[in-house]
């Protein structure tokens, strides 16, 4: 592995780890707040899948970095300006409709992206993707069903769900942005060229939203910046909470 590719791979793995830990954290905020007990348990499983995924990416990052950093140094010892997750993942928990719509948008993204990532020439990345594909199949089934139920449920649930779609749509454009790092990896068969995936994602999401009697928003606004550390205000608060104990005791074992 050349140095340039190794550096790019490290950066890439951190990005994927950040996406996973941030979304996993947001889902975990639902524990004991679910609409009923069964859902509380089920959504917890999704959170566990995402945080588990983050651990796999970060331990690989630690291996690539080879500078003494461990799995936990990446999520716990970087500030929001250093985080590289997509903005969609950091948006607050919101109400149940908001969370399920975000989940659908993210799950559909995973559903089109992972089958490409699994072809990665990097064996570790491919192995994580292979595991994540199975999880995503189930996640997408859940979030799709929820959006169908909420969109085509009562007037109130429809209103809340449409509002969530409208408020989140603008954060989905950057899911398909490429930069030099990702281009280098895509050219070398390690990373995914996400710019080619938007049509498939759009078709999948549109079909679900339309069936749910929801309106697919137009692309009139777009917020970008997650991959360069230009975040919304939400992430700082999330990390403050997430990192408080770890950072209060530097160098300690848990």
């Amino acid at each position, binding site marked *: 592995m050349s140095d340039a590719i190794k550096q790019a791979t490290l950066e890439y793995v951190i990005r994927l780890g950040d996406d996973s830990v941030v979304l996993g954290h947001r889902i975990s905020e639902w524990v004991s707040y679910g609409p009923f007990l069964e859902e*509380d348990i089920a959504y917890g499983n999704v959170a566990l899948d995402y945080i588990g995924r983050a651990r796999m990416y970060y331990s690989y990052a630690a291996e690539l970095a080879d500078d003494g950093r461990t799995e936990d140094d990446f999520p716990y010892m970087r500030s929001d300006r250093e985080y590289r997750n997509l903005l969609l993942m950091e948006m607050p928990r919101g109400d149940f409709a908001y969370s399920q719509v975000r989940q659908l948008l993210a799950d559909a993204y995973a559903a089109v992206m992972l089958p490409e990532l699994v072809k990665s020439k990097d064996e570790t990345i491919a192995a994580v993707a292979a595991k994540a594909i199975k999880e995503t199949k189930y996640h997408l089934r859940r979030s799709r069903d929820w959006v169908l139920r909420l969109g085509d449920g009562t007037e109130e649930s429809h209103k809340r769900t449409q509002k969530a779609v409208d408020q989140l749509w603008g954060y989905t454009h950057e899911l398909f942005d490429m930069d030099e790092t990702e281009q280098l990896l895509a050219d070398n068969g390690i990373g995914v060229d996400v710019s080619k995936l938007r049509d498939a994602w759009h078709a999948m999401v549109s079909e679900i939203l339309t069936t749910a009697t929801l309106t697919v928003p137009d692309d009139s606004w777009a917020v970008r910046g997650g991959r360069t550390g230009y975040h919304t205000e939400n992430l700082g608060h999330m990390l403050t909470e997430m990192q408080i104990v770890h950072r209060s005791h530097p160098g300690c074992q*848990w």
Partner: protein
Amino acid sequence: MTSQEENFMRKIEADEKIEPKDWMPEAYRKNLIRQMSQHAHSEVIGMQPEGNWITRAPSLRRKVVLLSKVQDEAGHGLYLYSATETLGITRAELIAALQSGEAKYASIFNYPTLTWGDVGAIGWLVDGAAIVNQVSLQRTSYGPYSRGMIRICKEESFHQRQGYEALLALANGSPEQKQIAQDSLNRFYWPALMMFGPHDSESAHSAKSMEWKIKRETNDDLRQKFIDQTVPQIEVLGLEHPDKAIKWNEERGHYDSGEIDWDEFYSVINGNGHCNRQRVEHHIAAHDEGTWVRDAITAYNEKKNAKKAQNVA
């Protein structure tokens, strides 16, 4: 005694299980509903104090462990509600009783979790105490309750271990971490002893529950087991025992211990704990916020069924 009562008591005495469709004395049914639903509510309310730390867990490993542990509590709540429902009462009714304050949950959960150490202490001491009780309840006379307990005990063995392991890491860590561990032990030890309930002489439900084999061992016997098993565990942690009167009694083959502050016990039960109101309010708020979601899926399903019926016609 009617022949039904005789038949019922014959089964109890022969250690046969009572099953949902069997005839049972109304008082037995009521007693079971009270105890089982209290147990279910405890699992569900118990999600809160530990859930309080999921977003602050100090490592990703601890985060997934805690998350899956709290998820298990929800699962155990579900098993127990499910077993209680076989007695002819709905979960909605049980939840209503919890929210109105008519039904109780374990008073231990009215204590606040103030530090990461408390997560360890709850797993180790609170789950540890619960397991002592639940192992005994695997032999309870009501079939669905007994089967639920067997399943729960099997799953819960990791709960206590993960808690102890978390405290062990603190106890072996920096001086500040060790202090956190000691503080958590000090705050949770006595309330954990109270979880076994009042002394046998004071316990309102004990006698009948023992006769019907709903309970299989007395509060004081179970508490003694827990006291005995905890002493060496504290030693391994290298922490100070919170009970200064703890002393091995060769003759009894048990540890003698100091007296529990029963005033505190009753005070917390009666609403003066740090979190009594918070816990119930949290449950009500989540349940209320879930109303529109539950309404939505009902409406969706009705539409779907109507469409199906239309297609058939």
